[in-house]
Every structure is written in C-alpha cells, then in structure tokens.
C-alpha cells in the first residue's frame, strides 16, 4: 500500500555566495528518505542546524528540493500542475514554531482561521464564520475569540489559533514544526494533549519536529533522529528511546539530567558542537564527536543496518557487532 507521504533521497543545498560567485554549498538536507502512513505520528529530533526545519519546508512545499522527490498519496508533488497542487495542498497543513510571527497581526482571528476556508473551500467571508467558531471550539477557545486580534491572546492561545487554522481545510496531514517550544511549560502539556486528541478524532497524521526529546517521546509513534542533514536512526518510539542504537541518539538521551539517576554529575556530555554543514566531516558525519569512532568511520559513509523490522540505524559499529 502506498504510504500517505513518502520522501525519496530528498536533498536541499543552499548556496553560500561570495560576492556574485557561489563559493560553497550548505547541505541542509542531504539525502533523506522517509515514509509515513495514515494516523501515525513521526517525530523528528536533532540539534539545531541539523536540517529539521528545512525538511519541514520541503515537505509542505515552501522550498523546492535540490534533488529527490516528495510523494503525497503517490503523487509526485513537483510534477503536479498548479491546480492539482492546490488540491493536494489542502490536505497538507503546517503549524509553525513561533505563534507570534505566524498570525497576521492586522487580521481578526475570524479571518486568520477562515483564510484556508476561503482558499480551499471557496467560502465567502460571510459564510465561514460559523465554521470558524466551530473550529475555535475544537481547539478549546471561546466563540468570541473570532472577533479579537492575535495580540490579545497568550502564547498558548495563539498556538491554538494556529492549530485551528491548520485544521480548517480538513487536512490528512499536519506538519508540526516545534509547536510548543515558544510557549510556557504548563500550556505545553495542554497543547500536546489536545494534539493527541485531535489526531484520534480527525484521523490525522503528524510529523512532529522538535529539539525537545520529552515532547517527541510523548506524542510520537515513530522517531527519526537527524544529524547534519542525514538520518542516523529510525524506529518505533519505544525502540529508539528504549534501546537507542546509534551513539548520537544515546548521547542525546544521556544529556538530559535526571534527579533519580544522580543529577548533573551522572550526565555524560557530548563534547564539542555540531560541525558546520558547509563542509561536513567525511565518512560518518558524527565521527568528530563520537567516542567510539574507528578508522572506517572517517573514510566511509555508513550504510543502513537493520536491527529489526522497525528499527534501523546508520553506524559502522553495529556492522562490527557491538
């Protein structure tokens, strides 16, 4: 069966310009292949600069890939004509990281949430009010919120408005790009609970992008771990968080201080920082920070290693049986 969304060797390079000449390329996303089925949440984790947001933009079509394809329900998004593309796009929505910048400050919430209805369902301004009020109810806001401006709401409430907007065109798939990183810790839980509820209720699929492992763990069925534009580990949430195979995933999980485990003294830190994506290290990109790095890691790019049906990692260590 064709999955809902399939990415094939997706690449995005950004030029680094030196005057008029292109002197180098930032390899933000460098060959990512993924697929996600219906009613599934896929979590994407990684440090900042690993290409999470670029991947998000490629999927929703805000950026054109340098190479590779995005298939939605079997259709190659780049080969569609504008009319077909618009039809497909009503099924793909996005919730951005920062609700302060993603809502037009001059529009009433009614029009912010109503815009997709206008574009995709061709409703006129007078006709969509009822539907907007209903949508606001779904995300736990009162009806009269429709007649306020975005600045009158708190961060958590703004993010609810952004979610209502994403739900408006009845999508099958929503991309959540750091949906709770800009809001308060107490509202975070409420938003995450709500997203989980909406997923079951409206049969949605999510891609959840976050640098916060707790957030990803609480919502995802499957997890992708990215490092410098590449996928290093993929598997079910239980497998990736329970028995992480790649040294990078292990390091990420070890970085969270836990009181019961002995607090900060028990934390094993990963030395150094993410290298530049302009000139990524050869071989395995993680070898500069990996404590298990061998000679092979510096020269050859690791190939896929299947730990079991739903768990794979890209690391030479696994090959040699560690």
């Amino acid at each position, binding site marked *: 069966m064709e999955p809902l969304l399939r990415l094939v060797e997706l690449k995005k390079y950004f030029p680094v310009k030196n005057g008029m000449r292109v002197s180098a390329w930032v390899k933000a996303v460098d060959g990512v292949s993924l697929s996600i089925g219906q009613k599934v949440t896929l979590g994407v984790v990684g440090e900042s600069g690993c290409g999470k947001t670029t991947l998000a933009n490629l999927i929703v079509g805000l950026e054109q890939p340098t190479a590779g394809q995005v298939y939605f329900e079997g259709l190659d998004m780049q080969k569609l004509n504008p009319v077909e593309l618009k039809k497909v796009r009503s099924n793909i929505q996005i919730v951005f990281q920062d609700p302060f910048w993603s809502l037009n400050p001059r529009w009433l919430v009614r029009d912010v949430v109503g815009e997709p209805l206008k574009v995709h369902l061709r409703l006129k301004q007078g006709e969509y009010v009822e539907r907007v009020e209903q949508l606001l109810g779904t995300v736990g806001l009162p009806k009269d919120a429709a007649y306020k401006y975005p600045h009158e709401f708190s961060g*958590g409430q703004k993010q609810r408005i952004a979610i209502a907007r994403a739900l408006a065109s009845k999508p099958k798939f929503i991309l959540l790009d750091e949906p709770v990183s800009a809001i308060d810790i107490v509202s975070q839980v409420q938003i995450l609970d709500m997203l989980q509820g909406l997923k079951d209720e409206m049969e949605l699929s999510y891609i959840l992008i976050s640098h916060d492992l707790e957030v990803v763990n609480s919502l995802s069925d499957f997890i992708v771990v990215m490092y410098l534009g590449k996928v290093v580990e993929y598997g079910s949430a239980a497998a990736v968080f329970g028995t992480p195979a790649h040294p990078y995933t292990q390091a990420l999980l070890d970085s969270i201080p836990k009181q019961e485990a002995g607090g900060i003294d028990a934390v094993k830190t*990963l030395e150094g920082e993410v290298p530049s994506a302009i000139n990524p290290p050869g071989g395995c990109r993680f070898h500069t920070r990996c404590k298990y790095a061998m000679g092979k890691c510096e020269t050859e790019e690791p190939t896929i290693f299947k730990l079991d049906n739903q768990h794979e990692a890209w690391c030479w260590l696994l090959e040699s049986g560690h």
Partner: protein
Amino acid sequence: MGSFLGIRNLKVSFKTFEGTKNVIDLEALSIQKGETFGLVGESGAGKSVLAYSILKLLSSPPAIISGDAVELDGDNLLAKNERDMMNIRGRKVSMIFQDPMSSLNPVFTIGDQLSNVLRKNRRLSGKALKQEVEAMLKLVQLPDPVQSARKYPHELSGGQRQRVIIALALSCDPQFLIADEPTRNLDVTIQAQILKLIVELQRKMNVTILYIANNPELVSSICDKMGVLHRGRLIEVGSVKSVMSNPLHPYTSILLHTDSKETDGTAREAPGEVSMEDWSQLTGCRFVNQCRCIVEDCKMGIPTLKQVADDHYVACHYVTGRVG
C-alpha cells in the same frame, strides 16, 4: 547562622494604565552560603522580576519596590542608593541573563567586552588585563582563548555565547550569582555542557547560586533547595529531595506532573492558561480559581509558608489544615 541572602516581605508592583499591579509578594526567602537554590514557576510568575529586583535593575517608575529587607551578607540592598549598587553589582552579585544573543554587544569583540568589565571593576590594565581575559575564557572552556577573544558575538554559537556570558558574570569573583534560565533555547547536548560548567565553577569558586528555570526536572538535578513561585508568591520551599518526591501544594504537583514522562496519553490535569486577570485583587489564595482542593479559608486569607516537614515549607490552607 544567618542566611547569605535573606528576603523579608518584598513587594514589587508596576504602575500601568489600568492601575497598579502587584507582581511579587514574597514573605520570606533565605539562601545559605554556598547553596544552589532553584526557583521554578511558569512564565509570568515573576521569576525574572524577582531576580531584577534583587539587583535593583528595575526602573522606577513604573516599578515600585517596597518591603522590609533584601539582605545580602548582612547588607540591606533596599536601603542602598544607586552608587552603592553599582559597586555591588558585578563584584558581589552577578547575573547570567536569559538570552545570550541580546546580552552581548554586537559591535565589540568579546575580548573587548570582558576587558571593559575587568578594567572598571578590578582596575586591571595592559598585560595583566590581557592575561586575565584569556584566563577567564579558558576557565569557561572556550576553545582557543586567544583567538576567541578577537571574535564578535555573531561568530560564536549559542553555547559559546552563553560561556562568554558566564565568563563576564564570574570575572569579578562574585559571591552570589543569579542565573536566569541560562540554558533556554539551547540544545540538550549543549544544555548539559553548560549545566556541568556552572556546577563545576560553583564548586571551584564557592559561589552561592539562585538558579531560575521553568523546568523542575532540570532544577532538581543541580540544586540543593528549590522554591516554587506562583503568581508572585512563594508557595512551596524545601530541599529538592522532599519537594520533588513529595510535592504538597496542589499547584506544585501539577507543575511536576506536567514534566513527567507519562506516555499513556490520558488527559493530565493542568490548570488554565496564565490568565491576565488581576490576581492582586484576590483576597485569598492566588491559586483559588484553578485549585481542586479548596477549603473554606482559601477565599478568605492569603496562606503563609508553614513548616510541614524537616526542611519543607508550604503555603496552602488545605495542606496545613490536614497536617495540623
């Protein structure tokens, strides 16, 4: 023995167009010398305002600071004038700010910014100054101190910038350090590095730290004691162990719950949003509208901190009514 930092009846209000709003109403807070005290609370609880009012960094008006005492090592900071405060800031009390991007000057190299502080506060110059700058950058484990000193803030990554901020804060050997969410917006791996650095330096230099964060789990991993701030009032204080394992105030248990690793997907109890209602008008407990364990007293009087166990204080009528 008296405490190193002692706050008694501190009230901070802000004058706004809609009248005066009370933001901090703290009856007592004391931090012992050499201790790391963690302050948690959601945004809008007044954590940063408290930090700023200890350093008297709030401009007045609009801020109105009143109260009995903010005592640091025996000195009442509330009674000090601006000139005395200038001498205290940096030398005695120092602060690591939340956002490393906006607390460094973008047009000066980090070496310049560090020298500036050292020249003014420690009267260093020439070769000694240069050496000290490099020593400070080395202390915070910045790669290649000599080269780094010549860099501008934008050339550094977020984690490196935060290291520079720590170097700035520690450059004049303060006895007391306020860290206002120093790891916000940092990746988990970098967060772990910075936390380790802070703990390591604290042990080396024996500074007292007030660590502010909104993540209780994080606070509990590095602090000795912790306090929970809710709407400007301290509602629970105690050793990290007893607060984390046995949160008594209904709000604390919600706050700790929100951070738990439950994945069963069942709806967790969480209070409403940080509302804009003016809670300073409430005569009783400030949590009363969201609380699930209301007793008669809650609407009548503001609960004060009462000792419930060894090194564990709670301000809640419901809890103290049950215990006492």
